[in-house]
């Protein structure tokens, strides 16, 4: 009987887009000091109530300095045969330097976990550095087309996403995130409504150098999707956050700075715009006209990680909680203040993010965060 239920879930997984509530957390050390993953794990554990055990995950930046400029593909696979198919896609454009099963702690909780694999790859044509983002995009899209048999968790340099079905503390334990040191971390616990979660649908979502965790529901998903489809993005992971990750990836490829990316995702109201000074108004109005279809509508709080920084953003009406806390070189972000106080009881300053205004934090010694 339980076997049949499993099959049913299997056939359901990845076929339906799941709106979700959630807990999000992020931290960065502005001096570029690498911290153990245990910290983000603790932040998430405090917000246990905000998840329902159907998905959790972490993104870690600065964890693979020993792999130089290699792109780390983290994959969720059903079996070795699928891995073979994925490998054939990868070798079209990449040289695989090293590969291994992502180390996990066998706790007994995950008897039926998928095959979790990572490849460290270098592009076959390193001379075409400018085209690398396109290459990461097309490769990821090709692999994700096989979803739910295969999906890419992350594919950037010196970063990795670890995610799956379970509570945040279970996933932290399973992936042994206490064995990694990163200068910035994202954490997520999911509360998907109405359907079983699946491994590929957990957060963070990542493409290229950015990763995002999201609490909310994107009512604009259909529009965002239809816009991104013009530019080669295929939405195959059936979680609305996927569209956020791709929109950010697209906007960064358009050479928009992070503050301007935020102005596209949560643009000022037209009335606000009319109060702006000439050149700024002109630019922000142009952004809204050109990229209006990438506006994220519906309640959201997001934390975006990129090399050397974090960006946190709320929807234009502030319909989701998001709190920031600063202490020395550490910046913490979380759905709840409790998560910050758990790991930093003497936090110097705590504040709630205003509607639609991005908080962008960069590591001061950005070079320390980049691959040497």
């Amino acid at each position, binding site marked *: 009987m339980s076997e049949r239920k499993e099959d049913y879930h299997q056939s359901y997984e990845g076929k*339906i*887009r*799941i*709106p*979700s*509530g959630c807990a999000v957390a992020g931290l960065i050390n502005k001096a570029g000091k690498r911290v153990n993953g245990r910290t983000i794990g603790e932040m998430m554990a405090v917000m246990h109530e905000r998840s329902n055990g159907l998905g959790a995950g972490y993104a870690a930046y600065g964890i693979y300095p020993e792999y130089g400029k290699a792109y780390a593909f983290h994959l969720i696979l059903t079996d070795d045969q699928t891995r073979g198919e994925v490998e054939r896609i990868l070798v079209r454009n990449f040289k695989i330097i090293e590969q291994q099963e992502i180390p996990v702690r066998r706790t007994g909780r995950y008897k039926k976990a998928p095959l979790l694999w990572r490849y460290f790859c270098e592009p076959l044509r390193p001379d075409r550095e400018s085209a690398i983002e396109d290459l990461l995009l097309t490769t990821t899209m090709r692999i994700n087309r096989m979803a739910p048999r295969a999906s890419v968790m992350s594919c950037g340099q010196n970063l990795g996403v670890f995610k799956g079905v379970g509570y945040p503390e279970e996933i932290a334990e399973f992936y042994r995130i206490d064995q990694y040191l990163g200068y910035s971390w994202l954490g997520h616990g999911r509360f998907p*409504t*109405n*359907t079983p979660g699946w491994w590929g649908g957990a957060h963070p979502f990542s493409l290229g150098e950015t990763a995002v965790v999201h609490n*909310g*529901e994107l*009512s*604009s*998903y*259909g*529009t*965002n*999707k*239809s*816009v991104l*489809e*013009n*530019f*080669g993005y295929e939405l195959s992971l059936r979680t*609305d956050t996927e569209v956020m990750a791709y929109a950010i990836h697209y906007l960064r490829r*358009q*050479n*928009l*700075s992070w*503050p*301007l990316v935020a102005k596209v995702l949560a*643009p000022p*109201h*037209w*009335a606000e715009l009319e109060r702006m000074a000439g*050149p*700024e108004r*002109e*630019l922000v109005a*142009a*952004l*809204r*006209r*050109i*990229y*209006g*279809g990438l*506006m994220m*509508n*519906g*309640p959201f709080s997001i934390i975006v990680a990129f090399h050397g920084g974090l960006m946190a953003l709320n929807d*234009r*009406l502030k*319909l989701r909680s998001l709190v920031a806390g600063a202490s020395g070189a550490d910046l913490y972000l979380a759905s709840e203040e409790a998560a910050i106080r758990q790991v930093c009881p003497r936090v110097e300053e705590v504040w709630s993010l205003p509607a639609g205004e991005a908080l962008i934090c960069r590591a001061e010694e950005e070079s320390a965060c980049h691959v040497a």
Partner: protein
Amino acid sequence: MPRSLIPPEFLVARDEGRCLKCKACVRQCGFGVHTDDQGRGISIDERRCVNCQRCVVMCPVGALKVTANPSVGRENAYWPASRLREIWRQAENGGSILTGMGCDRNYPVYFDHLLLNASQVTNPSIDPLREPMEIRTFLGRKPEKVSIAGPPGAERLADPLPPVVQLEIPVMFAAMSFGSISKNVVLALAQAAKRLGIMFNTGEGGMSSVLAPYREHMIVQVASGRFGVDNAYLEAGRIIEIKIGQGAKPGIGGHLPGEKVNEEIARTRGIPAGADAISPAPHHDIYSIEDLSQLIYTLKEATDYRKPIAVKIAAVHNVAAIASGIVRAGADIVVLDGLRGGTGAAPKLIRDHIGLPVELATAVVDRRLREEGIREQVSLVASGGIRSSADLLKLICLGADAVYLGTAALLALGCHLCQKCYTGKCSWGIATQDPSLTRRVDPQWGATRLVNMLTAWGHEIKEFMGAMGINALESFRGNRLQLRAVGLPQNELDQLGVKQAGEAM
């Protein structure tokens, strides 16, 4: 003349007990149904009645009633009364049957199979009375990417964007020419467009000088007859629309009979008074897509690339490929006019048997342009039979940026949809040039009614949006996931790109 064998379509009943013999009905009827019989009362010629309800509404004591004639004989499901009448009429006069307004046949109405979404629990609905709801939209070409100059933190726009037109509600008044409708009606549309912050369209009749104050809200049309097209005309409007076809008569030209071409119409059209104004079926300088491209760039050159160029086509079977060609030919706005689009005059069988419902046309064009990666460059305007704010929003979810309203606008001005626009006898004073009839529409009165209607639609759109938890119109465009369909087979769902009601996100 031999006796007609056609029974009257409508029955006119006068309550003699109520009738004051004031003869209002005699004066009100543009079709001569009521006649003063010089002392013997008022006689009724039912054969002339078009059931426009003017006399019924205007009778001060409510003594009149017009009803459809319940029977013309033994009509049946296969031979409906309308078809019997058409054959009898053709047997009597040998002509193709003319009509006005849009296709009224019982084809599937996709609007009525589509349901909108709303928020519950996982996503809060928004109260439009408390929170800003943005329904502004822009029409015109968009660059592929923004070009930015200046250092981070002090960025500015490097190149100005191509010209666009801003609409405060995603609605415009469709092309209706002075000639097909009266000058007062054109003025009412123009004034309403100005008050609402939207656009109206001159149609192919040229521009009357009375429209000068409304130029900022005017779309000028270049159609196959090129009536009134000169440099001043092109300069006058904010958008130039090349009309290839219209939904009510795809592939068919236009014909304004000489008897309707009075001095003023002749002047605005640039033709002699009394001469027939014939719009050829094709543009005789556009026999292919590259010719269209030449006309688009001719118009852009003539106006220094300061105005978006729209191209309007009737939705036909190959509409997606044609629209793609139009975008690639350089158009900034593509207008799709669907099966239900209205007209001042069209052959009835053409009107009723050619074309594609605008819901399908919008969906397939949006999809095709996305597949080609060019959807974001242009604006898409849907037109043809939009009856309510719900229809409008459904079209935006299917991929339109804005819609044109023709029939709905005329209804707001009093039209009762009798479909006799081509006769020029319109008792409501809309589709006529007879001064005794046209004065029935006062431009300001008409503008206020149009403003009222669209203000109401604006409120409704905001209520829909609030219910869905979406506070900007941009987030609706192409958002098919906010739609679900009831009662449609899978292949129709596929064409619309909409899921079956009951299916989750």
